[in-house]
């Protein structure tokens, strides 16, 4: 069995992007999906190892809360498994299907909160690449996350936005950030701490 002969792919290494996913040969992916449709529960570990982290971070980037993202991750794969027999294997990765489920769940969450219907509608109207790359593309995730982060940063105190840009997006050293903001290192740390907390309140936009 494939699940025994080959362990699941390790989780992707962290990199300064919203999400990374391993490159999985489409044939291999189709074989795993076929096993899932046949009721092979062991095959799920493989699929989860491939795309679980990417789905989690997609949800996290849209919900901004780790606990909610984990709920969405759990529900995404549950829904996918419950309707895996209706999934039609095409010429693109199953990741896009999973991602669509995750986004819909995130959208449901926003609707439940009635917090941002515009965001929900925008997510719903987002086009899924028809032919698209056969495997998840980081570019889409990065672009969407960067757009939302940018909108939220614009709603923050300018100094908070600046420290977040310098520290997280540009990844500048502390000393350089402190010099640019004309504060001491200790103040920079507290400023960054408060900026993260403030950003939490305005994200997603």
């Amino acid at each position, binding site marked *: 069995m494939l699940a025994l002969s080959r362990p699941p792919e390790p*989780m992707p290494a*962290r*990199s300064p*992007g*919203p999400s*990374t996913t391993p490159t999985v040969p489409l044939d291999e992916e189709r074989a795993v999906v076929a096993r*899932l*449709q*046949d*009721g092979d*529960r062991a095959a*799920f*570990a493989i699929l*989860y190892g491939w795309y*679980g*982290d990417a789905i989690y*971070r*997609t949800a*996290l*980037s849209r919900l*901004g*809360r*780790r606990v909610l*993202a*984990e709920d969405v*991750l*759990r529900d995404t*794969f*549950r829904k996918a*498994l*419950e*309707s*895996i*027999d209706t999934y039609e294997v095409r010429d693109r990765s199953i990741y896009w299907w999973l991602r669509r489920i995750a986004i819909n769940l995130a959208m449901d969450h926003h609707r439940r909160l009635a917090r941002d219907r515009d965001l929900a509608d925008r997510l719903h109207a987002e086009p899924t690449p028809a032919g698209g790359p056969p495997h998840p593309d980081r570019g889409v995730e990065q672009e969407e996350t960067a757009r939302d*982060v940018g909108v*939220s940063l614009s*709603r923050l*105190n300018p*100094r908070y936005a600046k420290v*977040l840009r310098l*520290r*997280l997006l540009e990844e500048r050293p*502390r000393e350089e950030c402190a010099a640019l903001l004309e504060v*001491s*290192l*200790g*103040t*920079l*740390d*507290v*400023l*960054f*701490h*408060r900026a*993260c*907390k403030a*950003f*939490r309140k305005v*994200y*997603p936009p």
Partner: protein
Amino acid sequence: MNEHEQAEALARWLDEGARGDPPPGIDPEVLDGLYAVRPDLAPPARVRVDDILASVHEGPLSAEDDAADNVVAFPVSPMRPATDDPDDDAPDRTARPWGPAAGVLIAMAAAFLVVLMPGREAPTSTLDAPDLSAVPGHLPDREAEAVAPRPVPEASTPPASAEGMPAGERPLSPSEAPAAEAKAEKARGIADAAAALEALGSIEAQPPRDDDGASARGGAGLGAAGAGYGGGAVGRATVSSYGAAARSPTPDPEAEPVDEIAPPAPPPAAASQATPEASSSDDAPVGGLIGTPTRQTTAAAPPAVALPDQDAELAEEDAMEEEPEVTAITAGSVRAVMAGSVRAAPSPQAEGRAASRTRAAKRASLADAEAPAAQPSQPTGSAVDEALAAATRRATSDPVGAARSLRAWIADPPADGQRVALAAARHAIDGAAPDLARTLAQEGIALDPSSPTATALRTLIASLPTP
């Protein structure tokens, strides 16, 4: 971990490449904000494959499928033979294996209960709370009872049954207790609001600090804001003129109960002298936080306690912090309006709105009040004082009407600058004393306790019925 320690630990973790889980003790909201910007820094999800598989209830991977072999079939009722034909389901669902006799018996029993036992009281429940209006001396609003427990006449006084409960008080039933506790809490808030107004004096005298000592809003913080954004040292000195005799309306004799709630405040001059300024800059340009004209003062005193450099920086950062709902009004403009010497410069649209609001508000709240007509020579800021004083006078004779008018006034505030004072009054009415103090502190309003506004607010707080 306090904020400084959290910030330091977070910075260290980030500098080390954010490997592994973040250090413990960091505020989850901070981490959520961090992960929202950089989802890749988040630790892996705490969701296991087995958890997901166990939650699947449909499809080829359903958890029930595996356990199906171990399930013992539920015995089929002998009255309803099992059948594979789905068409047989409908009639069987309506069949009653016990026949119509049981139904008739139940109906008769229900009729017996309804007809023969009409006067019997049901046990205490949330729907059958005792009618307190029948109790002599009952207060329509039990919040007042919660604030100041008044003895109930002996005729209706139940014996003290609960341990620790003084005689003369009726123990609350379990269904009443939470509601009464919530109301008591709210009513206590109203009483605390009066104390909060008194605390405004201490806001003037001593800048408030957060527990962690990292921020100093209101007093020192806003002083720092003036310096940081070039607003000049605008602050308490503007307020010290608040109790000037020129603008003080004649105290209403009916407003005497104020003194019972809050002791007489120190004279304005003393409050002014005790007012610290966190920082001041002589060469700072005159202006509000976002450019609204403000008044520059020369009476800037050094802070009572010298802050370390980092704390001073953080206090400055605090002052620069922008609250979304506050940005519409600058501290400088509010102070100027409240001080009554400088009128905040609204936009043309705001001026139009303010004019209509002023007319509507005066109609709503001051039409039947005994307020004297506004003197043209009086500064604009005193309109708040006058309105509140009029509302105070009215509150003594018609507290419910006064509360209603004031709420209507708050809903349609007469002017931007006065919105803050009215928001403070709203907080007072709602019994949110901390919110009241915070609102005033954030807006840089340091009410002189002897000022007409403070007096009016105190009286209103004391006299308004609890909503």
